[in-house]
């Protein structure tokens, strides 16, 4: 981990949850000068029709700010709420919606890390005089003197590892980032939180995409358009099989994602899955489980994190979803160092355009890009 000198100021991104609260308590115990900041990214009161009782995955609620402020007060560190709602809307929410409507399945967490948490927040931290930012991500950063590069590694707790969402980090960003929890397991973090008397030690983990209640993307997108005052014509599309036979109708491809089985309302003898969506024709193509298998993919906008761009094929383990078990593959360079062809040793299910493909060598994050 980059080691800031003791008199430098570290900005801790505090969400009000147990992880970031523990980061603040831990760094304070180590004697660092800290400033706590909560990023206000989303106004929970904005889309009232989504305010369902018991919704999970809420970010930036008043309760979270209250919790973060309480932790900062107990630790006796200066604390501020910084408002990045406009940046979040522009760099995360809007692209998320555009991607969805284009038939891809986007990952807003990666966009948020790239454009908000490790860009805007880092800039704000520097602006107030902090040399480093610290977050509660489960990942590790270290400097490799041989290559002269900062290296990103999986968190020790594989079940909590968040490197799938962090592949966009650049060398200058990694140089100023601390992930103090990367070497710990979640139970260890909770135990440490309790021993440090962090008041949020027993708080539930956040879930799903923070600004989409209950993970209902389609309802979110409909509510967002209503909020923007953009009228939407009711969409009529067709669900077809691989031979083009129409099986049913639907109300927009954004209700479907590759690999989805539930909610198709198609009754045939065998279980059917979405294997592709086409926003131009509003067709949802369904097929059997084996139709979902792919042996290759191409990743675009590849960011080489811990190593220089490859010029020769090299083997790696590739994750195509956060919960995907990294699969053995060959990385084949193309003439464009930002485009990489991935050839899996065994075919993989539901290679989904818009999701990320992240390349690992063991726990080392080599690079990552977006599935075309």
């Amino acid at each position, binding site marked *: 981990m980059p080691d800031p000198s003791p008199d430098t100021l570290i900005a801790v991104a505090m969400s009000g949850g147990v992880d970031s609260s523990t980061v603040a308590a831990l760094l304070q115990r180590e004697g660092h000068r800290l400033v706590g900041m909560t990023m206000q990214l989303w*106004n929970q009161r904005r889309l009232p029709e989504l305010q369902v009782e018991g919704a999970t995955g809420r970010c930036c609620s008043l309760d979270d700010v209250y919790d973060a402020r309480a932790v900062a007060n107990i630790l006796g560190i200066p604390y501020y709420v910084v*408002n990045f*709602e*406009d940046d979040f809307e522009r760099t995360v929410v809007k692209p998320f919606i555009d991607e969805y409507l284009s038939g891809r399945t986007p990952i807003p967490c990666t966009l948020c890390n790239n454009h908000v948490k490790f860009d805007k927040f880092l800039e704000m931290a520097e602006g*107030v*005089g902090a040399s480093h930012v610290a977050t509660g991500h489960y990942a590790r950063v270290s400097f490799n003197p041989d290559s002269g590069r900062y290296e990103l590694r999986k968190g020790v707790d594989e079940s909590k590892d968040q490197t799938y969402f962090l592949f966009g980090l650049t060398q200058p960003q990694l140089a100023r980032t601390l992930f103090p929890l990367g070497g710990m397991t979640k139970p260890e973090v909770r135990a440490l939180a309790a021993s440090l008397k962090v008041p949020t030690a027993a708080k539930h983990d956040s879930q799903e995409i923070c600004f989409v209640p209950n993970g209902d993307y389609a309802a979110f997108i409909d509510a967002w358009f209503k909020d923007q005052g953009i009228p939407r014509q009711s969409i009529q599309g067709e669900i077809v099989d691989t031979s083009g036979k129409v099986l049913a109708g639907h109300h927009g491809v954004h209700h479907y994602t590759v690999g989805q089985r539930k909610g198709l309302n198609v009754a045939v003898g065998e279980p059917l899955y979405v294997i592709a969506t086409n926003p131009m024709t509003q067709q949802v193509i369904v097929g059997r489980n084996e139709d979902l298998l792919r042996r290759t993919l191409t990743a675009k906008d590849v960011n080489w994190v811990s190593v220089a761009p490859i010029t020769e094929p090299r083997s790696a383990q590739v994750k195509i979803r956060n919960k995907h078990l990294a699969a053995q593959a060959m990385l084949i360079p193309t003439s464009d160092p930002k485009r990489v062809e991935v050839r899996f040793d065994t075919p993989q299910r539901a290679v989904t355009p818009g999701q990320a493909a992240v390349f690992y060598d063991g726990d080392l994050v080599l690079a990552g890009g977006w599935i075309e």
Partner: protein
Amino acid sequence: MNYFDHNASTPIAPEVLDVLQQVQSEVYGNPSSIHSPGQRARQYIEEARAQIARLLNCDPKEIVFTSGGTEADNLAILGVPPGHIITTAIEHPAVLAAAEHRGNSTIVTVSADGVVSPDDIRAALRPDTVLISVMHANNETGAIQPVAEIAAIAHEAGALFHSDGVQATGRIPVDVRALGVDMYSLSGHKFNAPKGVGALYVRDGVKVNARQFGGRHERERRAGTENVPGIAALGSAAALAPPDTLALRDHLEHSILNRIPGTRVNSAAAPRTPNTSNIVFPGLEAEALLISLDLAGFAVATGAACSSGAVRPSHVLTAMGLSASDAKSSIRFSLGRGNTLEQVDALIANVERSVARLRKLSPVDA
């Protein structure tokens, strides 16, 4: 802490704190009671009423004590009969939200200097206009509004005139008779009295309908047992000489304008309260500058305190025609009793240092 946010709130003056503590601990009677402890409490209230009346040049019976500026503004706006009302785009939310609640209102905008034009007010008049409300001095820029002229326009048209004087009271001379206002709001904590107490001047002969219901306190205009210690403290604050902040404010302003290229003062050409300077640092995020200064021990403000946490840039600065970017690059310095030349010089040095660091991060063409 070096405190430069007196338009948000002020520390209680030592003389005022003495009164507050003494009355808090010794004066326990209910001012409505007939016995001597009650009469004693009543005396404190009436003495304070006379002190406020002296400050505003009115009769004591024209003063209604309230819980603060918001309640005073609400009582004025909501306490007059139904009909059309006119107010301005730069009012405090206590006026704007009350006007919205009433409905049937016209919001008049302001010039680039943050001053409303009496002609624009006149143009907004309708036969059913019952009330015009224009603040005396703006909380964000300090711009003083042409209140006397507008009061005359209101009376010509047979309407009442209210002014929110929360930012003017205790800073500039206020003479409600000379201004010709029918109602005038003030708030204790903006001029070294405690929070939770304020007043509404209601000219003799003007009827305001109570907004809360209970006992027949304050000539049936404001029900509820009076906040005796707060009111006594408010009276003693009214008797203080206003703080002499003009020279320090001008020194701060000139130094920043001279040393930091591209900066400019919002409402520079308008008459302003002598304690307020609202400065644009083009291209900089005021939020980052505020936090930098706070970490260094200097309290300043971006926009109005009430807007913090909200996304929108200041409604006052945008009404003046500032771009969203300039509005988000504006810092308000507001001085008060107790600020010294040493503090101001230290503030200037820290502003310069913080701006230099922030500009290194975000290059500006200004």
